[in-house]
């Protein structure tokens, strides 16, 4: 209980600016990336028409999220954005699940991870919008329905980044706090596995899916 909210930090000064690194989060992110690379290697090793165990899981992910991207965008654009969406979901879902294991923490519990993914999605969506409609058509959207609505439209776009990242962060952070506090109150008898199953696996999957879906929708709103 006492170490709630404690973070291992590394502070270095670069050109007069103090930079802070959250070491735990960086290490956990590397673990997630490593596991995903290993999964990718195992899934594609010895590809065959009759898939192996890992290939089936890989195909499941790719098929689901390609289908989803195709529904929201179109076939041509799905080829471009499908891999991104699929990778985003796989990274997020593994990040949210990893806290179930002892001594490991979800990288998404730190606001920096969801916020940077949210900002990435923001830039991708707006880049896609400019590519699809040209800069003039893109800029015109901000003056809808009236020209004086422009400042509010800009705030609305920025609010999207805030909402998408805080949603993931709040859910994962809240889940881990509840697990910690309730386990502490009940002396870790009986409840922790149930709580980990609900907040770690179930809510983690749903929130990873919601984040991915919203990223696709933000791209499709800009493109259409």
């Amino acid at each position, binding site marked *: 209980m006492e170490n709630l909210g404690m973070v291992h930090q590394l502070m270095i000064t670069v050109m007069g600016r103090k930079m802070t690194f959250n070491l735990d989060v960086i290490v956990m992110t590397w673990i997630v990336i490593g596991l995903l690379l290993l999964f990718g290697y195992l899934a594609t090793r010895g590809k065959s028409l009759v898939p192996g165990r890992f290939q089936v899981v890989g195909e499941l992910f790719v098929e689901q999220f390609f289908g989803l991207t195709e*529904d929201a965008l179109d076939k041509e654009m799905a080829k471009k954005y499908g891999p991104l969406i699929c990778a985003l979901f796989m990274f997020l879902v593994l990040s949210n699940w990893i806290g179930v294991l002892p001594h490991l923490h979800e990288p998404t519990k730190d606001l920096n991870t969801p916020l940077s993914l949210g900002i990435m999605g923001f830039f991708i969506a707006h880049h896609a919008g400019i590519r699809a409609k040209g800069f003039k058509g893109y800029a015109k959207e901000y003056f809808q329905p009236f020209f004086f609505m422009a400042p509010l439209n800009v*705030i609305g776009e920025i*609010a999207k980044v805030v909402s998408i990242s805080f949603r993931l962060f709040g859910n994962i952070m*809240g889940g881990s706090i509840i697990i910690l506090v309730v386990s502490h109150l009940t002396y870790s008898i009986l409840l922790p596995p149930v709580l980990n199953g*609900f907040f770690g696996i179930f809510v983690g999957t749903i929130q990873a899916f919601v984040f991915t*879906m919203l990223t696709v929708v933000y791209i499709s709103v800009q493109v259409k």
Partner: protein
Amino acid sequence: MTMTPDIETWVRASAMVGAGLSIGFGAIGAAVGEGHTAACANSAISRNPALAGDIFKTMLVGQAVAESAGIFALVVAMILLFSTVSVFSWLEAAVLLSSGLCMGLGAIGSGVGSGFPAGAACIGTSRQPGMSGRLTTNMLIGSAVCQTPSIFALVVAFILIFTDFSARPLSPTWAAILGAGLATGFGAIGSGIGSGLVAETSCEGVARQPLAATPVTNVMLLGQAVSQTTVIYGILVSFILIFKAFEASSALAPAMALLSAGLCVGIGAIGPGMGIGAAAHGAVRWIARNEKSIGEVTRVMLVGAAVTESTAIYSLVVALVLVFVV
């Protein structure tokens, strides 16, 4: 002879009042939601008495999820009552009161909201017994997402309890602490009810048109996510109020500005949260009837939600002005 209570008494009193407010308000939502579920289960059983056992099970599962917001409030109340307070200051008193208020208010919406999908799932089971498994899954997903606003309230309550405010000046920090609790607490009401409305029609939709179950669930998640945008504005303002160090000032105006920033974004989020929920409620209902037009319906829902949300953005802007300018 009258005795003025010392600061230690005030802090203990504030912990007790906070605990009372937490579970008191927190009990409202869960009870309303569970009652609604039971009412729907009764009407479902009278339609199809042969399935009484299945419907009863669905009702209990749904009520269990609807109660979790109330349980969060109970956890916070227990912590406020039984944790040993070591710091005795006016700021600590504000923290205890504000965290209780935040969790209590924040549990109302989620409790009421997650009763809706549970009720719709009971009625759906009576109409379409073959889909009861898929309906229960859909209900569980919908109700779990409904809990998000109360989880946000819990996060803010815990951050308030565990943040060290001892180095901050008393005024205006006390107002920032109270404002932080109110922003997320009130903000969670609308979003909780709104996302419950969305989940309700998605359960109806799955029962009405089992073939459209997957798109209905997907659009439900999208609608719920959009209706929870308003509580996220609340949590944003709460974080700013908690983590920004405000300059000491004995004047009342800066303190009141911070308190009203919290109130502004919190109360301002209630209406849009429910309104966006209503927009998505309509969208999900019609996708279940006309699956082919999913693209158009979703787009209109998102645009409608964005327009509904503009009043929440106004209150966010006013709150940010109150925090940073005034």
